[in-house]
């Protein structure tokens, strides 16, 4: 069977989750690889969630929040924005390719943009193949 990546998405309730819903009401199709988890704000996304998802077998993680300046909570997305480069540094040290973890801004009116982001990300991870982090950390041998 061909490789179908598993992608975990963390979407903020106010902009990105609404944007994903809008893609639905507008019937804009995108690949079925993304599994969405709703959080109130991108600031809630503890970097360990991303690590847990990757360790749990995700081939990619998508983080979506409101555009800078548009956060429902004034500045929550700036917190996500500051945590992200630090997380990426850690991930790079573990050999996690850049395209596997992405931070994107999607507003409630950007259904098309949401679909485009998911499509593009799925294609890129398709090209990369399965994540090797589980094998690399020998996670399958560790009792969880």
């Amino acid at each position: 069977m061909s490789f179908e990546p598993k992608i975990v998405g963390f979407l903020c309730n106010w902009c990105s989750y609404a944007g994903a819903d809008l893609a639905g009401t507008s019937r804009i199709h995108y690949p079925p690889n993304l599994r969405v988890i709703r959080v109130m704000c991108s600031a809630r996304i503890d970097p360990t969630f991303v690590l847990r998802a990757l360790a749990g077998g995700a081939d990619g993680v998508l983080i979506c929040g409101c555009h800078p300046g548009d956060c429902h909570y004034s500045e929550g997305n700036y917190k996500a924005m500051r945590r992200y480069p630090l997380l990426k540094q850690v991930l790079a040290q573990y050999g996690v390719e850049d395209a596997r973890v992405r931070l994107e801004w999607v507003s409630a009116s950007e259904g098309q943009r949401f679909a485009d982001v998911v499509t593009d990300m799925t294609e890129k991870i398709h090209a990369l193949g399965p994540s090797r982090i589980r094998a690399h950390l020998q996670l399958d041998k560790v009792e969880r």
Partner: protein
Amino acid sequence: MAEPRIGVYICNCGTNIAKVVNCDRVCEAASKLPGVAVARTYQYMCSNPGQDMIVQDVRQLGLDRVVVAACSPRMHERTFRKALRSAGLNEYLLEMANIREQCSWVHDDEFAATNKTEALVRAAVMRVVHHEPLEKLSVNMCPNTLVIGGGVAGLTAALEMADAGHKVFLVERDDHLGGNLARVDLTAPYLDSARDLLTERITRVRECKNLQVMLGSALKNLSGFVGNFVATIGPVGGNGKTDQEISVEVGAVVVCTGYKEFDASRITYFGYGKLPNVITSFEFERMLRSGRIETKEGKTPQYVAIIHCVGSRSQEFHGYCSRVCCMTALKYTHEIKSALPGSYVSDLYIDMHAFGKGHEDFYKQSSEVKTLFLMYGKNEHPVIKRAAPEDGCEMLIEVAEKLSGEVIEIPADMVILMVGMEAQADADKLARLVNISQDKEGWFIESHPKLDPVATTTEGIFIAGTCAFPKDIPDTVAQARAAAARVLGKIAREKIEIDAVFAEVNEDLCSGCRMCNELCPYSAVEFDSEKRRSRVNSALCKACGGCVAACPSSAIKARHFTDQQIVAQIEGVLS
């Protein structure tokens, strides 16, 4: 912890979900998940029988947790929480899996969509195990309301609420009230004067002491939440200095910002802007209001042609029907015939949409005054060209007439383009300010297109009139009154229930580092200097969870979005 008893309900949503997702397979898989006592599918879970099914199961099977896999929680979470409440279960023991907006509507491969649905349902089941019963907070509902837009919708909504005895702030960016209706002469189909319709309302608005009108003003900022918004209002294009701005407290906002007309110069083939006597319907309204129908050269036109669907119902511009242009075009027929009895009017249309009360009769009357109706195909637009001197008219219109199947040439001295409605150019700015969504054409999106047409997904923000989609005056007025009724209903209850979702500090784990104190945009985290511990003020906390992710000792818990719950969900979607 005792073994949970979870009920899983998979909605078919008619065929909306079931035509792509194999709901029976999802149900079968769900019934085998740990803790699941019962799994069922149903046509419409949100219907009364659907909700009753949950209530009955909770009572008879002793369920203590419920998962509903259906539409977006933004749509029906409230509905199912209510069902849990009536079953005697705490409403927070519910989790929804979004298998419509984020699955069946965006995928067409049954196998993949069913797999994804199974994963989402599994994640919801694993998450709901960690849910805790929570109690909602109750806050006061501020009885003042902000209405944005002073057209017929805004005036109507504002009067309705002010007449009920409540303070209303009416913000209008123009220097006068009336909106687009103030640019119109008579109205179809009863030929009432638009001026008369408006004058009565504007006079009452001016005289009403509960109503504060702010002309030349716009909303600059909106903070807070339902029942407790603070709106900052300032002059349009102001210098951004705070001395020009005022802040008012309001409990709700009604958005009535209307539409703008389609820009006819975007269509080149009708020669608008080049041929002087090709004008838009709004330019013609101005002529009617001034009482003189004449060409640019000052002559009385003998031949007038009206072209429908300019910018509407086309692949190139807007796909939708603008709803009012057909009847407005027929109104022109009557107005032209009564002002210029010797003139000839031709009406070039794609389809005649006469859906409203009195519209078919109006169409019949228009045929009786000898209007020449010519039907053209959606993709075969009429062509206008300058006439030669011997033709005896200004222009010639060539149209492939659909009913006769012939190409017909008709004379015209004046051509009226029935321009459609489109969303305001800056609607996106307002949408961001008040946190509502727009569809792909820019119209504001209602909470439910059929059952909740004036509410939005943001509680306390309502929409009415043509800012949501093209509408005629009766529909606009009905929506404005509906929005006002929704606000009045909230004011009458005096209290607003606030989601029980907020952060709390576990004092035993808190090290008193105070990192969260600085982080909170609402200053909701206070420091108890005696105990040397941080504490969250739940009335100020808006539940973003920023402090939760930042706490180095994991001492802060986001209620209903706990680490445990999210981690369980991550494991659920991946296992």
